[in-house]
């Protein structure tokens, strides 16, 4: 009886689940200790109530955005550590030296690196910035579905916890960030690693899909009076394009992850070698999601560049209509190119050529955007603040990455560089300069609005330069290594190949990037330390053009005292030129806090954990819990409250009094 009880509640969990290798043990201990420290501090300072009421149950997108960014930055440190480990291994594991990490550990490290960077860092920063900025840019106070917004965040966090838990209990996948079968099937990956990968992505993916729907409806329905689609800021257009991609692509991921799990857990044969399975179908499905995914990430980043370049050139964004068409072209084309990720799988010359040509076509609207940015700067008055340093770094690096992309779009060229370090260098160039630099620039640009004080510019610039130079040192050698025949993901190679010096240079580059990250953290710390001298008293520290700069910093929870009315693009800029100010008071409906999203997040974690460890009872209990929570929520007749105009006026007066106090420091 105890035996069956154990099986029912423990599944395949056992003492062996705790890590054996020294490195993973160390990491596991670190994570557990870190978590304990945080929990202890919270208890010691009696902050639980505050945390629950102000953050854990919030439906304020500005707070949700901050939480996304915190999680994403934490995951950046984890994914970055993975990267440093990889560079270290590849710099020393030559000839008779096997490097500090075993093949198993190394393979888990790079699988975790890719998965974390895409799903938790890039997606996290993206959703974070959208939450912080989008509603205000549209002249709105919130997204279309605030409850679902909070739910998305807690599902994202649940996935994050699962993937980090794999370091402490069990193992992670060693099958790469996309887990191709048959390697990811039960026969070749019998442990829980691939299951951790599946479930952390599945849960976070559902959250992402919900966000896609949410932001899409927000853009269509939440714009303030007078703001037609063609008067929205370009960032909003880029988010619109990106969310259309999310809505179409993420269901494919949901299906693919489910099918792989069904193969592993229920003995199905979707992708098995034999019994009628088709592993090539997985490759097609995962990339039908995977390619749109990279455009999901890069489009909002492009939107951020549009905002930054216009503001810091003190000039209108060049070619607004052209930019909109370019976004549309990119959205459409991104669904037509997925096969270029596996030209070498043998689809035949006709198929390969068609997809190759489609891939090259995307270079056209992308190039258009770059020229539109450059010509926004043309005849402007450019201030090279740190966001602009990130942007210039992007221009130079992204173009080289784009060239290598056009090269690889030719199938016959790709045959030689597919899956080599040339490919790795290409996509890192695109993602780091295209996506990451954009999000860093966006954070630097918009954090004053969130925090109420400006960030240290000097440290910001140093950080940007470290990243740019570090990136070149870390990845240009990889282009050459790829041409030397170096395949990706190797944990060891022959001395006679002459690859080691290049790997050493790449390792130095990684160290420079780490220095850049240190500078960024330092920048935040110093800015917080000096916050009184750095107060943003006007709400418009950069002389901005769009509506988010028309509200105070930090933005009050009600955002606008009265929703603005818009008659043209860059309404705030126009108002400033004309000396006008929008204002007034109105009664405001705001959502009440709710504990249901975080509870569902926790329940989803139980579902994931139960599924991974085959503790089916736990998974079912979790699922029933989620359904119950949703039903309970639906019984809530008063999910919102009214903030009267009088109350708003009182809050505004209090805020202005506070500002006067801060002005003393100026």
């Amino acid at each position: 009886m105890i035996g069956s009880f154990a099986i029912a509640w423990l599944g395949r969990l056992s003492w062996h689940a705790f890590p054996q290798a020294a490195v993973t043990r160390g990491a596991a201990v670190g994570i557990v200790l870190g978590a304990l420290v945080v929990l202890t501090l919270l208890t010691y300072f009696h902050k639980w109530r505050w945390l629950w009421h102000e953050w854990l149950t919030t439906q304020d997108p500005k707070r949700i955005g901050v939480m996304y960014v915190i999680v994403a930055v934490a995951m950046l440190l984890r994914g970055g550590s993975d990267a440093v480990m990889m560079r270290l291994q590849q710099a020393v594991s030559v000839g008779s030296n096997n490097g500090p990490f075993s093949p198993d550990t190394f393979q888990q490290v790079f699988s975790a690196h890719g998965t974390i960077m895409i799903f938790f860092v890039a997606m996290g920063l993206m959703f974070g910035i959208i939450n912080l900025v989008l509603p205000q840019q549209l002249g709105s106070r919130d997204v279309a579905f605030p409850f679902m917004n909070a739910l998305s965040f807690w599902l994202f966090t649940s996935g994050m916890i699962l993937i980090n838990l794999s370091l402490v209990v069990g193992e992670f996948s060693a099958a790469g960030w996309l887990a191709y079968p048959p390697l990811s099937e039960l026969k070749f990956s019998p442990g829980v690693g691939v299951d951790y990968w599946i479930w952390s992505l599945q849960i976070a993916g559902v959250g992402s899909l919900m966000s896609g729907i949410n932001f899409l409806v927000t853009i269509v329905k939440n714009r303030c009076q007078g703001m037609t689609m063609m008067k929205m800021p370009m960032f909003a257009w880029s988010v619109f394009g990106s969310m259309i991609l999310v809505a179409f692509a993420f269901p494919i991921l949901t299906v693919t992850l489910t099918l792989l799990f069904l193969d592993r857990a229920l003995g199905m044969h979707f992708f098995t070698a034999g019994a009628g399975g088709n592993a090539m179908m997985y490759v097609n499905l995962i990339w039908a999601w995977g390619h749109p995914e990279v455009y999901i990430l890069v489009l909002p980043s492009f939107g951020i560049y549009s905002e930054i370049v216009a503001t810091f050139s003190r000039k209108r964004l060049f070619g607004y209509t052209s930019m909109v068409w370019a976004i549309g072209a990119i959205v459409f084309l991104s669904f037509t190119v997925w096969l270029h990720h596996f030209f070498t799988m043998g689809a035949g010359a006709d198929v390969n050529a068609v997809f190759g040509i489609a891939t090259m076509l995307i270079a056209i609207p992308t190039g258009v955007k770059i020229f539109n940015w450059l010509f926004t700067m043309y005849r402007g008055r450019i201030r090279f603040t740190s966001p602009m340093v990130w942007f210039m770094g992007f221009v130079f690096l992204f173009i080289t990455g784009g060239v290598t992309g056009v090269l690889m779009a030719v199938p016959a060229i790709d045959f030689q560089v597919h899956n080599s370090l040339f490919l790795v260098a290409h996509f890192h160039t695109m993602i780091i300069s295209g996506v990451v630099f954009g999000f860093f620039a966006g954070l630097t640009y918009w954090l004053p609005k969130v925090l109420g004080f400006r960030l240290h510019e000097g440290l910001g610039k140093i950080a940007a330069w470290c990243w740019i130079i570090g990136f070149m040192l870390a990845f240009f050698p990889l282009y050459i290594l790829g041409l030397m025949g170096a395949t990706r993901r190797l944990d060891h190679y022959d001395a006679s190949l002459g690859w080691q010096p290049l790997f050493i240079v790449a390792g130095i580059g990684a160290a420079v990037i780490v220095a850049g990250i240190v500078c960024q953290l330092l920048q935040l710390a110093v800015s917080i330390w000096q916050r009184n001298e750095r107060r943003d008293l006007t709400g418009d520290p950069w002389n901005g053009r769009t509506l988010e700069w028309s509200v105070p910093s930090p933005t009050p929870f009600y955002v606008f005292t009265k929703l603005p009315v818009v008659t043209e693009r860059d309404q705030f800029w126009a108002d400033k030129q004309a000396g006008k100010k929008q204002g007034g008071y109105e009664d405001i409906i705001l959502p009440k806090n709710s504990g249901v999203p975080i509870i569902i997040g926790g329940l989803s974690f139980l579902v994931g954990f139960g599924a991974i460890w085959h503790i089916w009872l736990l998974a079912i209990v979790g699922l029933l819990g989620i359904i119950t929570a949703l039903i309970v929520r639906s019984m809530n007749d008063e999910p919102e409250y009214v903030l009267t105009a009088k109350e708003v006026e009182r809050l505004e007066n209090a805020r202005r009094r506070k500002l006067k106090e801060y002005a003393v420091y100026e």
Partner: protein
Amino acid sequence: MSEVTTLDLKRVEAEATDKTTFGFWVYLMTDCVLFASLFAVYAVLHGNTFGGPGGRELFKLPYVLVETIVLLTSSFTMGLAMLALQKRDKQAVVGWLLVTFVLGGVFLGMELSEFHAMVTEGNSWRRSGFLSSYFTLVGTHGLHITVGLIWMAVVGIFTLKKGLTDTVRKRLTLLSLFWHFLDVVWIFIFTVVYLLGSLNI
């Protein structure tokens, strides 16, 4: 600067309903993509019987026809419930919802029975790629029906308790959209899986 605008609650409610309905259509579109992926998988794998039986051997068309009629009828009765909603007839709404629920339950029962028979005969999802994709595609539809039935029960109870409030009306509208959507998906399944499968295309 001190002009104060008070809330127009009717307009706020109408905007909220409009937003929710639009959002639900977007969700249905994503569900479309989900089913489309499963159909694509089925299309690739439907011939991979690995020496075992295919659709021709396994599908019993008369049985499936009855299932289909049951589901289509349930869509009809759902439509009647919505008509009753327009006439503000609470009893009729709940009544027709109950009929729809029963028909949906019968459909689900028939489907589970069909699955059970196949599994006990040795044709479970473990046998071949074809069977895996069959059970998953049809099973996913069945899961959606289950969710719809749970939703129907909850909304039905709400309607009884609270009457035809704005919220209840909004939720009934969304449920009916969902139910009709599932009906459309079933028509595709009936055609692509059962009909074409029986012809061994």
